[in-house]
């Protein structure tokens, strides 16, 4: 034990320059990330900005009670989980598949063009995207419904129909994010040793086999890390997206935590209530990340920590 302590001490001494260089980084996190967490106490107060944290009264769990007893809370929580689950199921693998396909394109010019075009939707705000899709899916003016009518079907009001609403959210999200999301995987693929492909080819592996046995295993660590991070976002729904598509006919299937809080909070400046909701959301997110990370470590060797 004595030698071990000595060892660590020597270690610190030996690398003291490195440790000194760490100090600004640690300070940054203390001041800007951990310090402000003190502000979380307003979730347990009736907070008035001018009185400040020290001057506002403590009300215990009042705001959490308000949240959990609201008649819409359960349905809102369920919608958030279901929509996020669908997105995780479909929107998470989409950029991986897209990037694998892109990687197989031999024509350099065409590949670049496809890549650039696929990034574009990322830069369009949700207000505009929702406007585009509302027109595109309109029962009277949208091309899809015109086609349906030509084929003899009844037009479908996709955006206002509870049956299709979640699908609209998932598909628009995929349309917007697939290109941008593939960047990180493309970067990972460029790091794969070409010798591995040559060896695989020598062994008689075709294109598909090469993808399955060379490319995918090589980018598995980054996929795992992305998945762990993504699982932390399950309760952090996309407010901009849902808010712009939501109508009262789809509240039952599409109202999520952020749109719900927006409607509840806008009436008054309910800082404490919204902080309470955020605290609740982030606690769950934290637990999810820890669990996913543990599973990832158990089943593979990769993980965040």
């Amino acid at each position, binding site marked *: 034990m004595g030698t071990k302590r000595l060892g660590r001490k020597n270690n610190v001494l030996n690398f003291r320059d490195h440790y000194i260089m760490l100090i600004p980084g640690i300070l940054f996190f203390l001041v800007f990330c951990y310090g402000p967490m003190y502000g979380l106490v307003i979730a347990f107060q009736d907070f*008035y*900005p*001018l*009185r*400040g944290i020290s001057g506002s009264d403590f009300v215990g769990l009042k705001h959490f009670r*308000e949240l959990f007893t*609201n*008649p*819409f809370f359960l349905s809102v929580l369920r919608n958030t989980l279901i929509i996020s689950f669908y997105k995780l199921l479909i929107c998470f693998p989409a950029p991986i598949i897209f990037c694998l396909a892109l990687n197989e394109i031999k024509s350099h010019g065409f590949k670049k063009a496809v890549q650039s075009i696929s990034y574009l939707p990322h830069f369009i705000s949700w*207000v505009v995207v929702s*406007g585009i899709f*509302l*027109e595109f899916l*309109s*029962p*009277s003016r949208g091309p899809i419904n015109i086609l349906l009518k030509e084929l003899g079907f009844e037009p479908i*009001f996709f*955006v*206002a129909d*509870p049956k299709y609403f979640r699908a609209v959210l998932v598909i628009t999200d995929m349309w917007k994010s697939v290109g941008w999301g593939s960047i990180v995987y493309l970067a990972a693929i460029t790091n794969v040793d070409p010798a591995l492909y040559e060896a695989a080819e020598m062994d008689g592996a075709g294109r598909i086999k090469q993808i399955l046995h060379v490319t995918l295993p090589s980018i598995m660590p980054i996929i795992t890390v992305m998945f762990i991070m993504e699982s932390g976002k399950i309760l952090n729904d996309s407010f901009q997206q849902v808010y712009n598509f*939501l*109508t*009262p*006919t789809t*509240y*039952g299937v599409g*109202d999520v935590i952020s749109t719900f809080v927006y*409607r*509840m909070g*806008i*009436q*008054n*400046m309910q*800082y404490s209530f919204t902080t309470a909701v955020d605290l609740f959301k982030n606690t769950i997110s934290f637990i999810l990340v820890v669990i996913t990370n543990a599973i990832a470590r158990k089943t593979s060797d990769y993980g965040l920590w």
Partner: protein
Amino acid sequence: MKRWFSIVLIALLSVSFLFAGGSKEQAVADDGGAVRMEWLVGQTSAEVDDNAEVVKMIEERFNIDLKAWYVDSAHFWENLNVRFAGGEMPDVLVIDTTSQLAQLVDGGVVAELPIELIREKAPNYAAYCDSHDVNNDLWNTMLYNGKNYGVANPMEQVPMALIWRKDWLDNLGLEVPTTLEEFEAVLTAFVEQDPDGDGKKDTAGMAERTFNAIFGAYGLRCVTGANPGFKVEEMQLGSDGVPFFPYIRPEAKEVLALLHDWYQRGLIDKEFITGENHGGYQWLSHAFMNGQIGVTCAQPYHYLAASTDTSDSQNWGICMQEFKALNPDGDIVFGPAPIGPDGLSGTEGWNKTGRLTVITTKCAQDPRKVDAFLAMLDAYYSDPDYARLVNYGIEGRHFAATEYGNVRIMEGTELRKEGVLQVDFGSTSYFAENVDATKTAFGHSVTGNGYWRYNVPACEEYSSVIATLDTLTEQAYFDMITGAKPIDYFDTFVEQFKAAGGTVAEAKVQELQAAKSAT
């Protein structure tokens, strides 16, 4: 060498910090005896130039040093609250609703302004209010826990107008309808008789912006142009002076049954759910401009400025300009709100009591500031030239006096930079009578009865449940109109509404209203 260099740098840095602090001190100090007044008129589009001519004229008149606050409107209250939290506040502030008052008073932002003081220092304002107190609530709107905070203004309001496709009516040989039955007949003709003459059955009658006229035919107030599409007003002041939730009245069930029937028959555009407006200027109705529906609702001035003459493009409002750009041969005509089975009719109108202007605790510390504020208020109610200056600006530069009344000739953002619309009290009745008489007369000539907005007194029972009640109602109403739920679901909805806090909130608001009316 290096060490010397760093010492010099540190010295420079400290000196610059000193100066930074010093200049701030100076900014707060008095400017040659003139008291500094900081105004925040609400959510505006640009920062005001302190040296603008209009600002200088106002400063000279009241011997003040005027500083107009600008707070980014995208996150207005968030940004403002950060400044409050940092101890910064303007002297005068305009709030959106009386329900904010409780929070701001309890939070130490808004200060008391006794009615006796207003009567003493702003006698013209007080006299005007006494004679124009439409709902008999001007003097008690700003009461909270028995004290008065700030001033409410008697506002000139024009209710929503019904705008019809005149070319469609002409094509079918129809007149503008006056009763609800005629209204339904015209809508039916719009659906079945191909009003646009393109040989296709692709037109509907109306969409959500006209719902307010149908609710109005049954005596209920309904908001137009909200997001989502429409919204029944939260609370309405009955003719007996007792406020109530129109949401759960039996008449609402009749309206919903009618709307559902119209929806089934295609009289209501199926796409009303996503709204008539598809982006851009809020009051544009794309469904109306694109020939999907034959009637919509908006303020008269959105379509025509000062007369019913649609041939003169000078007279076109912003929506009319867009409409004409898409339909050069199209034409419009204003129509009355349809009369319901019991002889009631009307459309939505905004607050008769509005522009809720308060003074802050910072202002209240200096009696000279309070005096200056009340002097500025009084001038707006006694001097039309001053009112025109702060609202329209300088003739020839900011507005032109035409046969259609005063027309702004500078774009809104520029206007703000020049200090116009910074210390005004809005379209008060006084302003409408003395400055904007032509426009006011025209607006009323094409509209009828208005259902005015009711200022709900601030109370926890109401503010903590209203968002839930709104959501319940929106969901139930849309479901019943589209047929996702039968009309008899209304009774279940009413039970849910009451149980979710509706009964308690209504009782509390009625109690507070009764107490206010008694003072």
